[in-house]
């Protein structure tokens, strides 16, 4: 390459002015590094243009450096700010995380609370049931005790009622306390009455044969121990139980006489 020709082409002036394309500039930079003559020429062009630019400056701006240095130092110090910001960000994230955790926790507690409330309600219902059962049991026990007291009372007479033609396998027992005008009927040995029918208890006198209704064995299905308490102020000589239509009958249906038993001869 002819260096003089290259130098006098004017490409170096354009290079210093920054008027070349990036590729052209790279080429000149490359030549400049290889040829000191080119470098020297470029530096002279640069010096001349620099002086021209200086002459246009209204004054030497040396005092502006202080302001720039202050800015730089503020910026350098400012670089610790992003670090603080980072911490702040971490704290912010922690805050959000904590809030989220709290929210999840609250939701969990809310759910748990509802669950407990539900469990409590169930428990209360169970308790009520238990109380009912206890009350029932107590009632049953009371009844049993009363029954036992009646049975044990020496004034109580025990009358066995034997199965009759209508129901030969059935049986019943009457405990009669004449002093208290009370009878207890153990109807365990009677079959369950058909729907729409009810057992009716009769007090009988033999001479003449006179049946008097004592009462109905109501709620036969529901009564578990099948012991029924009735009042009996009659001078009964025998007891009989017949199956009657619901509500009972005026006179016993003798063909539906299930059990019958006579009271032992009065002392």
């Amino acid at each position, binding site marked *: 390459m002819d260096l003089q020709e290259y130098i006098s082409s004017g490409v170096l002036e354009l290079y210093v002015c920054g008027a070349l394309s990036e590729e052209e500039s790279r080429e000149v930079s*490359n030549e400049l590094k290889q040829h000191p003559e080119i470098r020297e020429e470029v530096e002279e062009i640069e010096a001349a243009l620099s002086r021209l*630019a200086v002459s246009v*400056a209204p004054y030497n701006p040396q005092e502006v450096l202080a302001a720039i*240095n202050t800015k*730089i130092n503020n910026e350098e110090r400012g670089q610790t700010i992003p670090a603080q910001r980072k911490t702040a960000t971490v704290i912010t994230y922690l805050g959000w995380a904590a809030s989220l955790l709290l929210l999840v926790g609250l939701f969990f507690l809310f759910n748990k609370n509802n669950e407990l409330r539900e469990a409590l309600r169930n428990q209360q219902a169970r308790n009520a049931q238990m109380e009912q059962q206890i009350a029932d049991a107590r009632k049953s026990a009371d009844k049993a005790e009363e029954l036992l007291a009646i049975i044990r009372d020496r004034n109580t007479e025990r009358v066995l009622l034997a199965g009759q033609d209508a129901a030969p396998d059935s049986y019943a027992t009457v405990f009669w306390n004449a002093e208290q005008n009370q009878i207890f009927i153990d109807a365990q040995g009677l079959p369950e009455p058909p729907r729409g029918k009810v057992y009716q208890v009769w007090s009988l006198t033999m001479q003449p044969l006179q049946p008097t209704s004592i009462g109905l064995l109501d709620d036969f299905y529901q009564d578990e121990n099948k012991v029924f308490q009735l009042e009996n102020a009659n001078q009964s000589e025998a007891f009989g139980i017949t199956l009657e239509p619901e509500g009972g009958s005026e006179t016993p249906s003798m063909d539906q006489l299930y059990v019958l038993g006579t009271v032992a001869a009065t002392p």
Partner: protein
Amino acid sequence: MQQDGLIRELQNGNQRAFERIYELYSESTFGIIYSIVNDEKVAEELLQDVFMKIWNNASSYDSDKGRFFTWVLNIARNASIDKLRSKDFKNKRQNLQPENFVDILETRTNHAAATDAIGIRKFIEALEPICKKLIDLLFFKGYTQKETAEELKMPLGSVKTKNRACIKSLRKFVLE
């Protein structure tokens, strides 16, 4: 003139090197900025911005792409032209015609700090009108060779050779 070691120090974040760079380049940069914005206060603000960019972006300077002087020149011209185009600046300076370096130098009565004042004055006096335009566009305004050719309706090659002749004349006055 270009001190490669100094530039490396600047790129390493050495603030002393930056101050030396400022000493070497601030006045010419100030001149470039002033020639574009034509306002001392605005030019000072821009000078601060330009040197902040030089400090912050020093690592992006690559000697394979061009001269450090040219790199600084580009930053200064771009910042000034951006300012010139900005809305607040336009509103403020609505009625003022943009000046070129010759207008500025001709109205300048005393610039005591400029050691080349006499040489520059002689140069301006001897300056051909085409040189005034070429140097204004290529050096002060940052036009490319192609843009200059289009603006001045000259062939590309003529821009190159004529510009060399103009700058040779400048060298004769200021460097001899």
